[in-house]
């Protein structure tokens, strides 16, 4: 199938190096300590963060650092008629783990020993790239909750179809079965915290695709920073400082 036309346009009218439209909103769940909604095109994810708080299960207590827990789920309505996923299946367990590990890498857990941080992410609408969107939403929610982090983790996916590296695959491109690289970086520190790939890719092409994904992550980081800044300004204004 032709995913990139000879004119250089993808099926949805983007060019290979273009991301979908992104939108972020902080404070979607007022009961939580921090929350955010993150959208990449038609993919829409909500994240809520509780903590740092007292451990619910004492036996899990770690004396040197905070316990980070993550729960990922997909809303039943998120995929329309495509499929119905029950909670706790292999895929969501895996994604929960991925998000937990990625977030743990940037939270300064040693500052909060004997406490726990809960991250809940739920996919409201899925159109490819849910993993990346979840990480971005979780970052925003953590920042909103005021949890100390060494950097803002951002994530973006990239693929390789029709011998062209493509940024931010949507569902149609994702289900083409080609290579799909999900990357998470710490943009300020220039470090990779997550790298996953489906399918196979020659190493030199992987580097190109990864470079593209890094660009994408940085663009998202810039946007997230703007959103946080805007949010902080509003908080400032409300306090009347």
């Amino acid at each position, binding site marked *: 199938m032709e995913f990139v*036309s000879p004119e250089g*346009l993808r099926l949805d*009218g983007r060019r290979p190096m273009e991301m979908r439209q992104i939108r972020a909103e902080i404070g979607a769940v007022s009961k939580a300590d921090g929350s955010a909604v993150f959208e990449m095109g*038609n993919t829409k994810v909500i994240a809520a963060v509780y903590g740092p708080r007292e451990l619910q299960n004492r036996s899990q207590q770690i004396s040197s650092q905070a316990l980070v827990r993550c729960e990922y789920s997909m809303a039943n309505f998120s995929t*329309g008629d*495509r499929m119905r996923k029950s909670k706790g299946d292999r895929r969501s367990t895996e994604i929960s783990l991925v998000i937990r590990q990625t977030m743990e890498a940037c939270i300064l857990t040693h500052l909060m020993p004997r406490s726990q941080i809960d991250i809940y992410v739920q996919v409201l609408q899925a*159109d490819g790239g849910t993993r990346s969107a979840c990480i971005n939403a979780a970052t925003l929610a953590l920042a909103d909750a005021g949890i100390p982090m060494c950097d803002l983790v951002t994530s973006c996916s990239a693929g390789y179809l029709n011998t062209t590296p493509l940024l931010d695959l949507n569902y149609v491109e994702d289900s083409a079965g080609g290579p799909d690289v999900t990357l998470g970086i710490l943009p300020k520190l220039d470090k990779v915290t997550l790298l996953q790939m489906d399918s*196979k890719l020659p190493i030199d092409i992987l580097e190109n695709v990864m470079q593209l994904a890094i660009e994408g992550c940085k663009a998202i980081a810039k946007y997230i920073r703007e959103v946080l800044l805007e949010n902080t300004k509003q908080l400032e204004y409300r306090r009347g400082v």
Partner: protein
Amino acid sequence: MLHNKSFAKKTRAGKVTKQLREHYLRDDIYCGAPFCTVCNTSGARLSATASTVLVLDTNVVLNQIDLLENPAIEDVVVLSIVLEEVKNKNLAVYNRVRAICSNPKRNFFVFSNEYHRETFVKEMTGETKNDRNDRAIRVAAQWYQNHLGGAVKVLLITNDKGNKRKASEEGIFAETVESYVKSLDRPDLLDLLVRPASEDVDMEEVEDLRPSKRKVIYSEHKPMSEITSGLHRGIYHQGKLRVNRYNPFEAYVGSESIGDEVRVYGRSNMNRAFDGDIVAVEVLPRDQWHEEKSLSIVREEDEDEDEDVHLAPNSADDAPRTAPQQGSSGEVNVVSSRPSGCIVGIIKRNWHSYCGSLEPMPMPAGSGGIAHALFVSKDRRIPKIRIQTRQLENLLDKRIIVAVDSWDRQSRYPSGHYVQTIGEIGDRDTESELVLIENDINSRPFSSQVLACLPPLPWSVSPEDLSNPIRQDLRHLRVFSVDPPGCKDIDDALHCYALPNGNYEVGVHIADVTNFVHPGTPLDDEATERGTSVYLVERRIDMLPKPLTEDICSLRSDVERLAFSVIWEMTPEADIISSRYTKSVIKSSAALSYIEAQARMDDSRLMDPVTTDLRNMNSLAKKMRSRRIERGALTLASAEVKFQIDTETHDPLDIGMYQIREANQMVEEFMLAANVSVAEQILKNFPLCSLLRRHPTPTREMLEPLLCTAAAVGVHLDVSSSKALADSLDHAVGDDPYFNKLIRILATRCMTQAVYFCSGDLSPPEYHHYGLASPLYTHFTSPIRRYADVIVHRLLAASLGISKLPSVFHDRLQLTSIADNLNYRHRNAQMAGRASVELHTLIYFRKRPTDTDARIVKIRSNGFFVFVPKYGIEGPVYLTTKAEQGSGEWYVDEQQQKIKKMDGSLSYSILQTVKIHMEVVEPQPNRPKLQLTLI
């Protein structure tokens, strides 16, 4: 950038689901006109001086693609919505349009109107998809007019009346194709136009005026919904229609749902289906099945007659059926065991363009220069095609290409349109060109992009090559090549040294083509597409450009060349002790022909080093050969002929069988060994993405004709394994020397062809090469003329760590499609080679009617097929004249494979030698054929 969401409902597997897709509308899509002041003109394709810009409607692209391919049509804007519609309706046409659009010489510009902010249209409620797309086309045309201003006229070309009317109402210039082409004042273009199907037009205009002719000839095709439900319920059966090569009135549909072939007799049962169409067939009630009367050969002249003549008795079949049928013909009404059927609908058309000529006819008077003519295809399986032309006098004596447009119920023949003239009938170049076109062989010169990939000439081995650590310097070795005389593309050379320990070092050096052909370059793409060089009698169509083929890669004598070498250490018993693969630099000391090499070996006085090497190699080769035969390798034979061509006129002077010498077998043996060695090496390193060659074991049914023939002449063949077959072929010695070869030729014909495949697609037991009795085989030794060898070279280099594996190999689907293309190209190259031989045979015998001996190879009810060993020709001999057909004077004894006269005075049996007279006759104008008659 604007963001918009389009909603679409889509059915998948019967379920209706709602699909949501993003659709981004952009500002950065440009109009493609170089004179545009607003847009970025870097990607502009339209010509700078365009006064009229054409915007095409979908129906124009779909139907008039032949016209669009003509360079007279220029400055065309192809809208992305049009491309999308075309792609959904006809992928072949889509590919052709894409090819035009990507051709830098044509001014075709693709405008992505669907993604442009100002030309995107949203579906309105109550509007059909079609109407919406038509509107989108009009909006885009309007946008172009506004965008480019008054200096340029934007013309919408549409054959849809509704669309044209609406366009005019909206103030867009719109014209039909016909009126536009007429305005160009080019009569030759008018012939390229496809006539609208005759339902739309006044009947009298298209057909001749005789009212009696205007009756319905064919029954109607069932609607698609009915066919689908019929297929579900098992009333209809789906399959590909294959028309008999020797009898266009008989066809088969191989259907999986029945598990047998359904026969279709006669044009009315075939109901307008073409060879290769996917059809739905209904099996007729049992009493209407055509009885399996003895098979006969149909004469070419019969075609012109009324259909009833052909219906029943004339069915020539490729393979004789086993149902024994003795006694007189006609009266005994045995019902056939094979189902007969009639075609109820065509699921997928296999129409393409066909080569042939016009049926001679007198020039019609008047009618505005438009003449209706009948086109006769060279391929007998294709019915005549009715065309309209304004240049009849030009076309009558020409070979032309015609495309089929439609076939409606009222006309006996399909209607089509003229596409291209090839040249004059009977002209050797024209006929050769025809052979190439029929076999889809690209004989165009290499493009400048391809030639740009070549290294600068004159080329010689550079110091970098010599100092390259991966390349071994083997210039000191005494290497030589043995090839057919006059061979310019020498891709293999050999060396053989006696080692101090009594063993031999044998090397096979193959031209290092991959050093010059790099993956992903235009040169590589072109070679992938061509797949193989094609050898015709008088010319060669190269896979790679000539400088590579004949100079840079060719391992000529006394020049340094780059090679890929396989070096073995062999015992004097020809056991391989070790093998080594390396890139190398060699300097061939002699380029011998087979004849020279043979003469050297035979001349006992010669004791020079090269001759000694030759003798050593020959003795090794003989041992390898006998071992291979012991393993069960088949020695098959084919009737290869060789022409002597006049250097001036290029006409054939003489033909004879190709002689095989010991030297040929020697070289062949080492090449086989090299191929097997390399196959093992690459498979070991790349078990999933190696390109190998396999030869499937023939099934018993395939060998049936051979067994039948053999049994009739009293030879028992054991086909249980290739070894058993090889042995029994060896024992099949008749009373004359040619007998054995004839049996081998017949055996060869029963086998399927060897094919390339990707090792990941099959399981290891299936890799087996039956003919060579080798578990693994590939092609490594002729990279100059076969692309498969280029791929294998790359695999081998990667397995040695010399280079990286190109990305193609990571994609198994792509590799499989390359292998399929190679098989297709190889088959075509072979067919073209044969057709070229046939053509030259015809030219040769045109001036020389000859009497000669022939052998009967197939018995039919009204004659038999003979094979002429001396010239490698096969053809039918008729025992009955047309007038007395079916008079039952002759009858066939199936078991004995004999044809006898009723009174017993004369009989012919299979493999019998008969004397025949060969002469070129022209029963139908422009279809000369070689006629064989008994003397």
